[in-house]
């Protein structure tokens, strides 16, 4: 009994002796080499003084061992911390023997890439619609007159065609003026329920200016099933607007597209002035985001679907214009120039 007590006491005395000797020595160390020597002397695994002392624990009674182990571990941990703190100090202040390390110097960088702003907008839109069951469909950029116009209920020789000034191709076909031909392709190939999103490039016979380009991106959505209604259109697109623009109020106003009826334009309350009117929204308080409407029965019939049984809605918008607004890009052309100073900064 007595011996056991004295054995634990001796052990504890020895521990605190080691610690009180080591701490000032560690504090006085000036170089990494000094520290390494101290580490080996005190906590080195083979010949460190703490390791040597640990042999004593084995000879203790079972009752004393826990206390001894706890004290040992405490001391060991404190010395390790002292060594780590000293190492950091030696590194940052430098020591006489080795050159200083200046931690304010830059790390070794890598180049940073960037998705195109239009891609970023498309991806964000797609992410929101994917959550509500939409998949992505694609189609050719050179199309036939039938897929681009006729099947979408454009009357021949009609002023509605003026809104789609078209680039025609030698040998037949045209460059699609909207992504809507993919509506027809999808409706022909799949049986409702259909919920698809169609991103892609579209073409217009336009001069490159502040807000027009002969090619630009469009993203289109189509939902067709039994019982799909104008309420679904309003609800889904308002949900999208809230997700995409934050807590945004939307309004729907009458519009015209040959391939939808009723047709609408969806506006979002101007994020700059919150509806009071400013230069960005041309004093309207609203910013036009997308065109939409209920799929025209003749579009469903173009794809051989029963327009009495199925109804649907569709929308289309311009990710380029959204990117232009969001990133405050003065000229649309700058999105397509490929200036790495612009794109690199926007795509981060």
């Amino acid at each position: 009994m007595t011996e056991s007590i004295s054995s634990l006491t001796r052990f504890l005395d020895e521990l605190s002796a080691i610690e009180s000797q080591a701490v000032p020595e560690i504090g006085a160390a000036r170089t990494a080499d000094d520290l390494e020597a101290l580490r080996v002397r005190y906590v080195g695994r083979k010949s460190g003084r703490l390791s040597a002392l640990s042999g004593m624990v084995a000879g203790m009674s079972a009752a004393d061992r826990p206390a001894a182990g706890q004290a040992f571990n405490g001391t060991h941990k404190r010395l390790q911390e002292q060594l780590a703190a000293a190492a950091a100090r030696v590194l940052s202040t430098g020591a006489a023997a080795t050159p200083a390390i200046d931690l304010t110097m830059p790390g070794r960088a890598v180049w940073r890439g960037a998705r195109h702003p239009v891609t970023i907008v498309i991806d964000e839109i797609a992410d929101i619609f994917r959550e509500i069951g939409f998949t992505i469909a694609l189609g050719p950029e050179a199309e036939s007159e039938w897929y681009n116009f006729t099947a979408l209920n454009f009357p021949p020789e009609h002023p509605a065609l003026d809104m789609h000034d078209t680039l025609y191709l030698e040998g037949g076909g045209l460059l699609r003026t909207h992504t809507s031909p993919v509506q027809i392709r999808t409706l022909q190939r799949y049986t409702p329920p259909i919920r698809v999103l169609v991103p892609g490039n579209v073409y217009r016979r336009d001069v490159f200016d502040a807000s027009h380009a002969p090619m630009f991106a469009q993203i289109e959505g189509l939902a067709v099933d039994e019982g799909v209604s104008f309420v679904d259109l309003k609800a889904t697109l308002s949900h999208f607007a809230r997700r995409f623009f934050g807590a945004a109020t939307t309004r729907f106003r009458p519009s015209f597209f040959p391939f939808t009826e009723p047709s609408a334009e969806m506006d979002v309350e101007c994020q700059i002035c919150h509806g009071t009117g400013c230069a960005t929204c041309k004093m309207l308080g609203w910013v036009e985001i997308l065109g939409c409407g209920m799929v025209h029965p003749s579009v469903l019939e173009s794809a051989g679907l029963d327009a009495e049984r199925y109804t649907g809605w569709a929308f289309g918008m311009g990710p380029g214009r959204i990117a232009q607004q969001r990133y405050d890009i003065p000229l649309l052309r700058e999105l397509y120039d490929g200036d790495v100073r612009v794109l690199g900064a926007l795509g981060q």
Partner: protein
Amino acid sequence: MNASVEWLSAFVDSGLSPRELRDLITARAATVDAIEPVRADLAALVVGRVIEAARHPDSDHLWVTRVDAGGPEPLDVVCGAPNVTAGVLYPFAPAGTTMPNGITIERRKIRGQVSNGMLCSARELGLGEDHEGILALTTTAAPGTPLLEAVAIGDTRLVIDVLPNRPDLLSHQGVAREIAAATGKPLRVPVIPGGDPAPAMSAPPAPVRADRKGTTDGVRVTVDDSTDCPAYLGVVIRGLRVGASPPWLVSRLAAVGMRSISNVVDVTNYMLHGYGQPMHAFDLARLGPDAAIHVRRARPGERLTTLDGVERVLDASILVIADAEHAQGIAGVIGGQGSEVSAETTDIFLEIAAFDPRRVRTARRALGVSTDASFRFERLVPATSPAETCATVAGLMTAVAGGRVAAAPALVGPALRPPEQRVRLRPQRVARVLGVPVPPTECATLLASVGFEAAVRDGALDVASPPWRTDIAAEIDLVEEVARLRGYGSFPTELRPYRIGTVPDDPLVARTARLRELLVGMGFIEVRPMPFVSDPSPDGTSIRVTNPLAGNESYLRSDLLSSVARRAEFNLARMEGDLRLFEIGTVFRRQPDTPGRPAEEVRVGILCMGARRPPHFTDPSPPAWDEWDAKALGEVVARIAYPGASVVMEPGEVPRALWRVRADGADVGWVGVLALDAPPWASTAYGAEILMETTDVADVAPPGRHAPAIERDGPSRAPVPRYRRPPAFPAVRADVTLLVPETVSAGAVEAVLRGANEPMLERIDLLSQFYGDNVPERHRSLTWRLTFRHPERTLREKEVEARRDKLLRALETHLGVRQRTA
């Protein structure tokens, strides 16, 4: 369409402000893009308060005032008006303002006193003749408020974006009809303002109709084809006096942005903007002695000088209004100079007609001239409109220009059927499309408010459209009417259950997304260039654009890297030489044997040049990208483009296409050096272009047919790698340095090593290449590290040596390659 708020008020007294009108029209009919004060010339003026007014020290009629114009400091303003009074508000033109008379107010000294602007009289603002003093304002607006906001001055213009389906909204009457329906206020026939007493509007005799030929007051009217011209109404007015228009007419036209020409022409323009019926007045005296009107197709090569002074050559696709011999106008587009009304005109032949929109569109496009008239005719003026507007214009014309209608006007065209064609509107259909039930009675009330006749029969509505609603042809058109008149805002926005779609993701989507992620992660910047080029590709497969707007957009590109290269040059011109660009885009090619649409491919193009890493103080000039980077990039891109395929980089035609990329044997792209128009400081550009997918351009099914998905359209999965247990025993490495003759490629050496049936050989890594001192001519020294491993035990040194020697023997046997000694 420009609409004047005052003009609209003449049709319907809605009591709404311009902003309220804007919101109402936008919500129900067509979007109002802007509200503009007609007196925009007063936009720079503000409300100014005279704080103090003192006599000018050097003048007995001038005042020196201090004016609060909303700025931080009051302004010194010299004023000559006898009525200037401290504390009163006046219109103030700050220095820099251009006045309605064109004079710009400048900061200047008037008899030694500085004046920073002008307090204005009514006459100076063009608001009347009162020049006795400056105009005291009765407003509560704060100093500095724009004058046009503080005081109602002049008319307000609404700019309405009327879409092609609603030609009935291209007139004040049409817009007023919607306002009346929405507000419940009656639609009126406007009285002529400003007449004192109001001029008597004498109604002319009723028109006499004939099918093909008619006569009025000695003028024969012939219409060749009633399809081209379903209604042609001629009115002869004799004894009128051409002169200036009365002020009310001038201001009506000014409010829609038109300049006054003469009373006769102004009345026709008033009818166009007021009622949507374009009209044309011919000088009767200039239609030849034997006055006749002949509506016919132009003769090939027939010439006509139009009102804009351009001589035009016509063809048989163009409908003209001719006298007995010559064309005198292009039907529905523009009149001819030869029969233009002038100051000497006393008798006119007034044309009120309806033309086939396709005819007008053809002429407008062929002649390249668009007018307010052609715009309306192209969108359809109903055949009923001429007879409806005849009395109004005759009364107005004689009231404004004098003269009288002596004979019954002639109306040539087929008898118009009453609108017997009814469209059925089923309540179930309304509910199905709109998502909420709208009771038939409500539908009927809504439709009736804008001129439809709707009667309930067998639980549905029988609807007859008013003649101006030429857009209504089917039930769905009425469903839209109901939704619009009820207000889109009235429908709920509740998310309802939906079924999951049957369409799988296009398989290209996942691959392009992975590729983008990879390339962006490696520091590449995505570009989206225009896919046009100015010249065809040498192989003759380029697709020409038949109607490009710019010469550099004449062809569609047939490769991606030329577009990306142009973007690199754009950056090089801006001194940016460290470039890593990529595009995932479409290229177009003519299919040699297949006419029609081009073949399309989605490809990925990457370009790298300049420093491989940003400079660092440990590495101030990092190495430039080289062909070995490009080769690895091309390979890694191809592996993503072709998941699971065997990708081989096959040596290509040095120096340009260094490698052809093969995926499962197919040629899918190349890697090599790009020729750029680059400044001398630029480093070499490397590129890779790899096919991702050939787009299916074929028609899915014939028009009107459904071709449901077959098996291949089901979701396809890219092959996934299989799990392999990580090795449990250490590997042993052995380096071999070989003396390789120049006729033997490294690839050949590796092929022999791999083909030597040595199962323990796990990896082959080429470590170095060396030419020089101890290496014989036409040879090089190459060092490979061979890694051996046994799956079940640790290999012994001797075993490894034996295996290495076996491989060396194989090399010697097959290639004559030996280990380099010393």
